[in-house]
């Protein structure tokens, strides 16, 4: 209820005023990422400018925050405990949709530019974005911790370059163990602890070539795929045996 009030407050009072003053215009170096056999992560350049009608306001400094979120999945989190002297999984918890990848890049330290309320409203940091309703629950904290340790949830403070309060750019590294799907990118303009404009776009990550073909075959024609796997194995075993026989002759 309180949240709805806040959104209404922002929508009716701040946005119409602010949006006129400063607007973000942005683009990505690529909106498609092709995952082929030698895919080893990818760098996406996010760049843009701030469009204004008037002079640059002098009161508060301007900051840019950029987030990229991977496709969302339902996850099962298991907890181990000691039973009869050995460590076994004793508990499994299914938690709602969480992105497999989440990165936040900003011009300065987030706690300096983003008050908790604004953060909650726009769901910017991982803490506010990932299962905020489950905050404090060990399973949710473990999920965030595991993903942070695996470098899938990242915070890159000070990595957005802002030139003369007008041009900005940063590069977002997509990991090599990437998930297929749509990656949503959000760009926020922050001034005086308020989001004054935002812009959203997406990156489509897809397997191509032999990767695509094998993946489709494995799921659509599983039996043929299995027989093919066995045929390759048999052929290679025989081939190696013959090759060694010839070598020894």
């Amino acid at each position, binding site marked *: 209820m309180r949240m709805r009030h806040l959104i209404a407050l922002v929508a009716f009072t701040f946005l119409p005023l602010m949006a006129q003053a400063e607007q973000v215009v942005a683009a990505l170096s690529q909106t498609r990422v092709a995952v082929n056999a*030698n895919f080893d992560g990818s760098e996406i350049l996010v760049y843009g400018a701030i469009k204004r009608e008037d002079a640059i306001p002098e009161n508060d400094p301007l900051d840019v925050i950029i987030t990229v979120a991977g496709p969302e999945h339902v996850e099962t989190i298991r907890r181990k405990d000691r039973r009869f002297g050995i460590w076994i999984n004793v508990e499994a918890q299914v938690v709602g949709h969480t992105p497999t990848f989440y990165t936040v890049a900003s011009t300065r330290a987030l706690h300096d530019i983003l008050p908790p309320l604004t953060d909650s409203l726009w769901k910017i940091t991982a803490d506010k974005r990932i299962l905020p309703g489950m905050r404090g629950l060990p399973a949710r904290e473990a999920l965030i911790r595991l993903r942070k340790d695996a470098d899938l949830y990242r915070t890159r403070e000070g990595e957005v370059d802002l030139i003369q309060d007008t041009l900005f750019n940063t590069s977002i590294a997509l990991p090599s163990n990437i998930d297929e799907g749509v990656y949503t990118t959000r760009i926020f303009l922050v001034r005086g602890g308020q989001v004054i404009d935002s812009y959203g776009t997406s990156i489509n990550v897809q397997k191509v070539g032999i990767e695509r073909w094998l*993946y489709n075959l494995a799921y659509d024609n599983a039996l043929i795929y299995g027989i093919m*796997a066995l045929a390759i194995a048999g052929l290679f075993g025989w081939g190696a045996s013959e090759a060694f026989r010839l070598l020894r002759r």
Partner: protein
Amino acid sequence: MQIFLPIAEVSVNAFMLLGIGGVVGVLSGMFGVGGGFLITPLLFFVGIPPAVAVATSANQIVASSVSGVLAHLKRKTVDLKMGMVLLAGGLVGSAIGIQIFNLLKAMGQVDLLVTLCYVVFLGIIGFLMLIESLRAMKRAKGRPGGRPERKKHLWVHTLPFKMKFRASGLYISAIPPIGVGIMVGMLGAVMGVGGGFIMVPAMIYILGMPTKVVIGTSLFQIIFTAGFTTLLHAYTNHTVDVLLAFLLLFGGVIGAQIGAQIGLKLKAEQLRILLALLVLVVCLKLGIDLLITPKELYSLGV
């Protein structure tokens, strides 16, 4: 050189996979084990999801076993008749094992039971083999050039349905080999391995087969059990990664040939001691993992 695997959905170093395949291939050729109990943990270690690791190693085992068996066939160290009898039991065992596996999966504790199976079976077999081979070695040293050992009259010789296994020099009932096949097939399906490390000692100590033919015959049987497992995983779980298997088996088939050559140069007792030690090391590692407090109590995914 990094390569992206289509089913595992991770990017890994291709040379590392070739290396893993090669090392396991050498062991496979030397001892007549498929190497599933080694390759699966190694794949976990390099970051392949467990489900993909288990299914794909079954595929790799097929290739290295084919390569190994052909080398043994040329040397006439495969008892095909015994292999067929074991296989008949093995397929029945696999079918039963898969039912057990699915039952455990529904109960949600399949990982633990698989690990426990590994620890218990690897431990017992490794320990028994080590003691037996050390004793055999001591005997051989104590009486250099002594009279050849008299064939022992095992309990298996008293059962009906006798068959002649010429390559093994055995005239025994068909019941024990079928029984061994069923047991190994069952354990293999539950543990996600070919089952060579159980098959080899069972052939030596239960059936009384000469070590010379044991390895080739075991490999022969493993081809079909592992093939059946691969097909089943590909069909039901879509977890066989052909690209991963290709890299592993490329290293594996070469390794298996080298292993078969090394195996010929070593004495049977030495081979058995080495295999026993290897089995014990894997068992110890898995056992310790169950006992020590894990760094992270939580885990994600399947």
